[in-house]
């Protein structure tokens, strides 16, 4: 008792009252401020006296526009592939805005650079924490999706990867994703499609012996393509018929003079040359190879010869080589004359950006429309109003959308939950005077379910190749049989 009395005695009553009232006022102001900032919209409207809008299926629920974050390569060797992500997403956003937005909300966008894994994660965080985006579309490189994925889960941001297709993402980095989705086909499908294309177009089943040379960029994608091309060739043609005569591993965008590689490949006299070189590497390689007469002696089997900007594969690119588009979209399939969604996409994209769309552009375009569809469905199911993030996610899972490439399905269950699946394309190259570049013709449409691990398969990733697909092929594909 005496202690308390002591304290009170030091402070005079006047001072005490001043302090008490001051504290109450200050506390009240601070408290009101916090409440205002943190309050849900409804409470905020009550405080400021704005009329709250009546909820309904398509009436504007928030006047604030929707903010989309885009992240991709705007410079360097990856830009040829990556910048179209920005272009596809922006085209979709502009179209949606023209038609009134998503539930009346217009889409604004902010773009940041993709780079190394550390740089990309840093820029991703800025998009979420500083730019305050509502949803995210982006990423080209498979080095970056496994780095950004866990951060997306931590920050709780709906993240639609337009590429960065490594199997590693949903098989090991984030096995049970909540916020992360991926629209382009899984990477292993790429090498598998190329190998199937080689077998079909080049009639490899009829040959006694097939000599195969490999040249791939030395990073995860190149390794993945190499592994899956090899195992498909071995399984379908038989190990005793296939001979791997050379393997070249130039660093990604590190080599401009491929002549030593080309000479080595030719010295080993391969029947086919399997390659996942892309972008600037691929252009350098094929132009130099022309000088050495590679194409008159062997056929090229590519995962990405026609997948970067379509016009990058010049009219001098020889006909009759297996043309890959990363097992995804090519602007001529489904043919625009037969499929209005693709017709509209190609025409509008060309008009907007003065070039033909590649699979990255189509992927990003579909990301935005997928988000729109999911928001609208979730809104309808809850009886109107802007849906919660959980509701949007629930709508995304298992959703099928018709994009320019045809139907795309978002898987809802394991393995590879939240991975997108659409039929894969592989073709043959042909120089076309109407377009002025080499195009993909005779497309072979491979049902995606034939070349990817199905829902419910419970194997483990192959320790060496690192993918479920590799184990699945080894365990379930029949020897000597083409799975389509």
């Amino acid at each position: 008792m005496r202690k308390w009395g002591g304290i009170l005695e030091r402070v005079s009553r006047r001072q005490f009252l001043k302090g008490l009232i001051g504290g109450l006022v200050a506390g009240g102001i601070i408290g009101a401020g916090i409440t205002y900032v943190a309050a849900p919209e409804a409470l905020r409207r009550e405080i400021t006296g704005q009329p709250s809008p009546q909820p309904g299926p398509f009436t504007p629920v928030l006047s604030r526009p929707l903010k989309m974050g885009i992240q991709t390569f705007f410079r360097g060797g990856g830009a040829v592939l990556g910048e179209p992500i920005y272009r596809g997403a922006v085209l979709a956003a502009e179209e949606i805005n023209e038609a009134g937005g998503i539930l009346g909300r217009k889409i604004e966008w902010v773009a940041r650079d993709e780079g190394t894994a550390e740089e990309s994660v840093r820029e991703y965080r800025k998009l979420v924490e500083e730019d305050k985006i509502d949803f995210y579309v982006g990423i080209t490189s498979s080095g970056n999706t496994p780095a950004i994925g866990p951060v997306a889960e931590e920050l709780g941001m709906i993240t639609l990867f337009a590429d960065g297709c490594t199997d590693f993402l949903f098989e090991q980095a984030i096995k049970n994703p909540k916020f992360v989705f991926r629209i382009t086909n899984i990477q292993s499908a790429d090498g598998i499609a190329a190998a199937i294309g080689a077998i079909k177009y080049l009639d490899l089943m009829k040959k006694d012996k097939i000599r195969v040379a490999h040249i791939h960029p030395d990073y995860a994608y190149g390794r993945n393509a190499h592994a899956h091309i090899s195992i498909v060739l071995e399984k379908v043609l038989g190990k005793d018929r296939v001979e791997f005569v050379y393997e070249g591993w130039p660093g990604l965008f590190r080599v401009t003079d491929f002549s030593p590689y080309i000479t080595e490949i030719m010295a080993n006299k391969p029947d086919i040359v399997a390659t996942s070189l892309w972008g600037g590497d691929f252009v350098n390689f094929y132009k130099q190879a022309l000088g050495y007469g590679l194409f008159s002696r062997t056929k090229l089997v590519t995962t990405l010869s026609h997948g970067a900007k379509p016009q990058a594969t010049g009219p001098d690119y020889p006909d009759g080589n297996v043309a890959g588009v990363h097992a995804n979209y090519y602007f001529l399939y489904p043919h625009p004359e037969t499929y209005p969604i693709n017709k509209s996409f190609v025409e509008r994209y060309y008009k907007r950006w003065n070039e033909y769309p590649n699979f990255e552009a189509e992927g990003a375009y579909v990301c935005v429309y997928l988000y729109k569809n999911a928001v609208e469905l979730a809104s309808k199911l809850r009886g109107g109003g802007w849906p919660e993030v959980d509701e949007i996610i629930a709508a995304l899972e298992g959703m099928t959308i018709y994009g320019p490439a045809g139907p795309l399905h978002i898987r809802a269950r394991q393995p590879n939950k939240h991975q997108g699946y659409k039929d894969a394309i592989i073709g043959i190259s042909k120089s076309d005077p109407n377009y002025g570049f080499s195009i993909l013709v005779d497309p072979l449409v491979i049902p995606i379910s034939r070349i990817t691990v199905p829902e419910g398969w419970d194997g483990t990733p192959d320790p060496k190749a690192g993918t479920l697909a590799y184990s699945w092929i080894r365990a379930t594909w029949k020897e000597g049989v083409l799975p389509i």
Partner: protein
Amino acid sequence: MVVFEDILIRILNIFYGASIFFLIAVGLNLIYGVMKLVNLAHTALFAFGAYIVAGTLMKILAGFVELPVGFLIVIPPIAAGLTVLAVSGAISPLLTYAARKSEDVQLILTFGLLLIFEDMFRGLWGPVPVVSNEAYMRSGMFSLGGSQYPLYNIYVMIFVGGMVIALWLFLHKTRVGMLFRATSMDIEMTSALGADVRKVIIGAILIAGLLAGLGGGLYVPAASATLGMSIEYLVYAFVIIVIGGLGSFVGSLIGSFIVSALRTLSLAFFPELELALLYVVAIAILLIKPEGLGGGKGW
């Protein structure tokens, strides 16, 4: 089964690679010789030459009537060489400044200059590789038994072979060349004997620039002008000057040849170890004969 033509083609590739390396290495060594400066920005001048031809000159020429191949293989590289000569002149004050500083400052200054150049390439010519293969394609190829070899590469080797002879004659048979060699060996004595060593230094910078630009212009029809090319070739140039020795003409030749040979052969037998092998050899040379295989002999 090893066929004669396969071996011959590999040898040709080694000479071709060495030709390009030489044009870069000799300029680097020339500058080091007279200024004792390792100019890390030198390979950016090589890339500049490539970009000038592919990105600007060929685009302008494309508007004209179809030019004869002979014109296309000679004029653009020379034009690139002269342009880069002018650029070297422009940056020479920076180089002479750096030469007076300690090595760490030199490193930072010249490497920073390289990075500035790379950014300039991106700004002027964009982030995507610039291709201009007309000269290469139209030169055609010749048959070697069952194989083929591009004639353009042969032309480059002959051109550079001529440059090697011309440079050697310049250095050893002309008075100005003697001044260069003297300045490399002992700059104070040369200056004391009345020579204007500042002119020699500027001359070295200009000639090095000319050769680098020429190299880039010759190289680009067979490849492309890409961002990061400066660094790609800097990595090789490093190993070349270690193996061949700094400030040595003969060293430039030896170093270029050995590095090209190592590269070609490692790609034949241990493709994944290419760069590692080069650096292992460089380290070995540093341990056994630090002045390099051609070094210590001067010019």
